[in-house]
């Protein structure tokens, strides 16, 4: 455990006695706090980083005799800056959730029945290793796929690679950032990173497309956003829903869903037409301006008004507001970008707009990552798989994180080759990927489904073997390297010992490797040893890192374009590609074009979804500290339309989608804050796992209603806002 930073108050009472660990570990928090106040117990602060979402904020965990009493932000960490979001503050709720997975479990009934018997680690690991080996012998190693998200990836991806399979799928690509990253890469040669390198603090105008900051609670980004609000930046918020961000906006554009590209093209057209673009910037750095200008000529504000239902005058006004303040204009490219299946092109529009306004690499726009980096560590190379990866799904621009649903499809139809084993770590596939039926169908085809999880969520409860990982507060994980304006490295280390029989991911991976004859890929005894070696290689003092949590490497950052630091665009042409030859070669529009999408029929609503500030997808829904703030989701319905339908605020209704799928009863929120044609809900609710005492059946599951999805042909992203629902009154509710 880490060396503790003694609290100031204890300097005064240096002679204070420390009560034995064993006794106090079982004492209630109240007493511990009192005893601490009396100087009987010592509070220590142990740095680590958060895993309640993927922002990886630096945490200072306050521990009193083996019990985590509070989590605070690490001031050294750039993502936290001494603060945690509501979810991060509630992280100990996961640690002490009584419903946690406590021991390995082996299915004792049919798959999905939810019947398990407790097993020892040996039993469970042997079983998994044995079945994996059998699949390997029968179908080849590629027949095992890994679905993973978050830090477990750092342990199980090497295991998969060592095993010989290239087939990994992370929902962070095809269900999240994929189209955005591809769209930006095609235009600028690189994406925007995570944390996104947005220079909002210096912006005069910020444009948000859906990005519902404040509800989307990525810590430092929201801090920047609040800073921008505080400094008086003008916000243009495009969202069919009056989000928290819209509430702060100078202009809220309640766009008709699925018409975003029309608005963007109109803006691009106005800016070109009226000569408002940054001529110098475009001249120096961009390719294909002529073709772009030609292609968008007809995208007038009047045309866009018809599509978007945003008045032409407002479109003009907002365009000139941007132009007037360029380049200090931050156009957020979004994060969860998989909306309508033309999402790469939507991002391309945003990228083109950024280029025209000259905001990429400019103060108030976006900034460049530091070029500093850590030297690579030599390690044993993984075996070359003998078959082509199938996780690209044939999409020309699929990324390295894989296309989750492509693996699913191959699992169902056995093409191009069969997939017989799924290894799932840190993702709740049932909630993450659209069309639950398909997922279940694929799972039926498997010889083995293993889940490494901390909680018995939906997907884990379908597994043949469940391996209980300890929470992020109880383990070492890979060092987190941050590349923002400067280079940082942060440590995840155990704050307390693992509870029950749970084990760290690295241990599980290593033990499996041992049983699979792959130990040479895990040539260290403990993860601490591995990290230590890495630190030594990187020239970082491990002991110092343990105390500080995050170390920032002083370097020569060049965040903005200047005469001395000209930009490098890693595109084919070395320039910003307003017109994309790459796309053209693959048969896609080189300049984005608008196509109409189906709109809801009368009596229907388009189902849209988003975040709640105190929840992360499904994973926090059972966290006692967060559950109490938002125990179940609600469906937002436009107030006048609700009145017409006779819906009463706070009563339960049932949603029925175009394919006849019915939701759980869900409370209706009758509100002026949404367009008439949309029904909105927070994603992640209504787990089917009865082991989750708080979250079971609470609210409705958006994913259950998302039976249709529109795949982006460029990268494989699954557009998920293409489902329509009807609302039935008087849902039975227990």
């Amino acid at each position, binding site marked *: 455990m880490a060396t503790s930073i003694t609290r100031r108050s204890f300097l005064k009472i240096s002679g204070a006695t420390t009560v034995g660990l064993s006794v106090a570990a079982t004492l209630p928090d109240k007493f511990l706090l009192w005893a601490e106040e009396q100087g009987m117990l010592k509070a220590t602060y142990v740095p680590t980083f958060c895993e309640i979402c993927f922002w990886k904020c630096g945490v200072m965990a306050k521990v009193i005799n083996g019990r985590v009493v509070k989590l605070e932000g690490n001031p050294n960490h750039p993502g936290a800056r001494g603060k945690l979001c509501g979810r991060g503050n509630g992280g100990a709720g996961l640690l002490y959730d009584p419903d946690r997975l406590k021991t390995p479990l082996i299915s004792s009934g049919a798959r999905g029945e939810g019947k398990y018997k407790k097993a020892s680690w040996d039993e469970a690991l042997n079983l998994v290793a044995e079945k994996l080996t059998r699949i390997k012998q029968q179908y080849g190693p590629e027949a095992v796929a890994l679905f993973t998200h978050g830090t477990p990836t750092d342990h199980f991806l090497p295991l998969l690679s060592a095993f010989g399979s290239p087939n990994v799928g992370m929902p962070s690509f095809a269900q999240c950032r994929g189209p955005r990253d591809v769209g930006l890469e095609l235009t600028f040669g690189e994406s925007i990173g995570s944390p996104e390198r947005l220079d909002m603090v210096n912006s005069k105008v910020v444009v948000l497309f859906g990005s519902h900051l404040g509800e989307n609670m990525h810590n430092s980004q929201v801090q920047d956003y609040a800073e921008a609000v505080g400094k008086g930046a003008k916000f243009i918020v495009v969202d069919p829903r009056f989000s928290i961000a819209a509430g702060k906006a100078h202009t809220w554009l309640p766009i008709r869903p699925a018409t975003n590209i029309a608005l963007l093209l109109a803006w691009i057209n106005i800016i070109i037409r009226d000569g408002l673009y940054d001529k110098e910037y475009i001249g120096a750095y961009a390719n294909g301006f002529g073709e772009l200008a030609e292609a968008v000529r007809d995208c007038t504000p009047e045309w866009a008004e018809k599509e978007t239902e945003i008045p032409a005058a407002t479109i003009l006004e907002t365009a000139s507001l941007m132009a007037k303040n360029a380049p200090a204009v931050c156009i957020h490219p979004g994060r969860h970008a998989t909306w309508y299946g033309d999402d790469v092109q939507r991002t391309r529009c945003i990228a083109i707009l950024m280029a025209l306004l000259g905001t990429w690499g400019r103060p108030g726009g976006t900034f460049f990552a530091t070029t500093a980096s850590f030297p690579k560590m030599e390690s044993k190379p993984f075996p070359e798989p003998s078959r082509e990866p199938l996780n690209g799904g044939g999409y020309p621009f699929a990324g390295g994180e894989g296309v989750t649903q492509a693996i699913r499809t191959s699992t169902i139809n056995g093409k191009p080759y069969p997939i017989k084993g799924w290894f799932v770590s840190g993702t709740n596939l049932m909630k993450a990927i659209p069309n639950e039926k398909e997922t279940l169908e694929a799972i039926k085809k498997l010889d083995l489904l293993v889940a490494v999880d901390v909680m018995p969520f939906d997907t884990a409860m379908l597994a043949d073997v469940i391996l209980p990982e300890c929470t992020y507060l109880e383990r070492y994980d890979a060092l987190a390297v941050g590349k923002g304006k400067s280079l940082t490295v942060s440590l995840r280390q155990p704050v307390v010992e693992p509870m029950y029989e749970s084990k760290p991911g690295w241990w599980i991976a290593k033990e499996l490797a041992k049983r699979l004859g792959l130990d040479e890929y895990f040539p260290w005894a403990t993860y601490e040893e591995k990290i230590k070696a890495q630190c030594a290689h990187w020239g970082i003092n491990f002991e110092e890192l343990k105390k500080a949590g995050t170390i920032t490497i002083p370097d020569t950052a060049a965040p903005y374009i200047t005469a001395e630091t000209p930009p490098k665009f890693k595109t084919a042409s070395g320039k910003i590609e307003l017109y994309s030859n790459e796309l053209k070669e693959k048969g896609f529009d080189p300049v984005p074009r608008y196509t109409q999408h189906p709109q809801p029929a009368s009596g229907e609503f388009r189902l849209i979804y988003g975040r709640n500030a105190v929840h992360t997808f499904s994973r926090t829904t059972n966290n006692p500290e967060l559950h109490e*703030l938002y125990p179940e989701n609600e469906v937002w319905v436009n107030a006048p339309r609700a009145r017409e339908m006779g819906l009463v605020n706070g009563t339960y209704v049932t949603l029925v989608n175009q394919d006849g799928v019915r939701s759980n009863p869900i409370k209706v929120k009758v*509100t002026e*804050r949404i367009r008439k044609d949309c029904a909105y809900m927070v994603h992640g609710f209504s787990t089917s796992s009865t082991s989750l005492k708080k979250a079971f059946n609470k609210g409705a599951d958006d994913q259950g209603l998302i039976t249709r999805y529109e795949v982006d042909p460029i990268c494989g992203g699954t557009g998920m806002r293409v489902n329509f629902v009807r609302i039935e009154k008087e849902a039975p509710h227990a």
Partner: protein
Amino acid sequence: MELTITGVNAVTTPHLHVWDWRVSLYLFLGGLSAGLAIMTSILHVRKGGKLAEGDRAAFSAPLYVPIILSIGMLFIFLDLERKLNVFWFYLTVQPLSPMSWGSWGLLVFYPVSIMYALATLPESKRHYLRFPVLVNLSERLSRFKLPLAAANFAMGIFIGVYTGVLLSSFVARPLWNSAILPVLFLTSAMSAGAAFMIMIAGEKKVKLFFTKVDIWLILAEMVILPLFFYGQYTSSGAHRESIMPFFTFSHGYFWYGLGMLLLLIIFPVALVLKYLEVKEEHGEELTADALLKMNLSALMVLAGGLIIRLSFVYAGQLSHL
């Protein structure tokens, strides 16, 4: 307007609900004992003590005072969340807290009412006291009947007012926050005291006397209550809002509307009944029929007092600044 609040305490949202029937009963019984104390003092002083002569209430009424008070105190005790800490009431004086001076006041009221009960105990009944010390005390106290009656009367007024001040001191709850409330509560307390007296008295003269007293008190209540509502209605928006439960006949406010309706019936009917009693020619003894009417009207008055306490305690918590 749409309101969403994250982090609400059930005890204050959607409205305050800290006090229930226990506090209502405390206020009612406290008021009743106060009213009865006032009436017993009057009984013993009236006509130089002649009125009390020969009536069973002469000695029973003063005894009822501390008993009813104790039952009332039991209810407030039941309402305390940390009962073992009650002694703190008496380790401090909080001059701005009605509850503090109420608890001190009760501490004085008790001995005064007990002493008064001892003092008014007729000689013939002193042997019930068993212990010579008490018999002795009773004998000695009986010499100070008059000053004790005065003290008892004063304490009765004090406690009667206090039960109203307790509520009226809360600036945060507009229904309660009215200077008329203590007057209303005192009047209602005295009226209840008189009614109780009518019920426990044996002699016709006593019953009729207190019937007359009660007529005036009911009349007073019938003036004060509308005045109270008038005051609230013409005051700030929050004050005006605060009385709406009584006048809005909706599902949510059903009990308040009903309470109001009952009061509207009880007071006039009781008044008429009493008026008839006084007017009627009675013989030496009251007829069974007349007794029934008398007791009925007295019961109505008591019920009215209870309704006032219950509805005000609850409705006050619905009101908000």
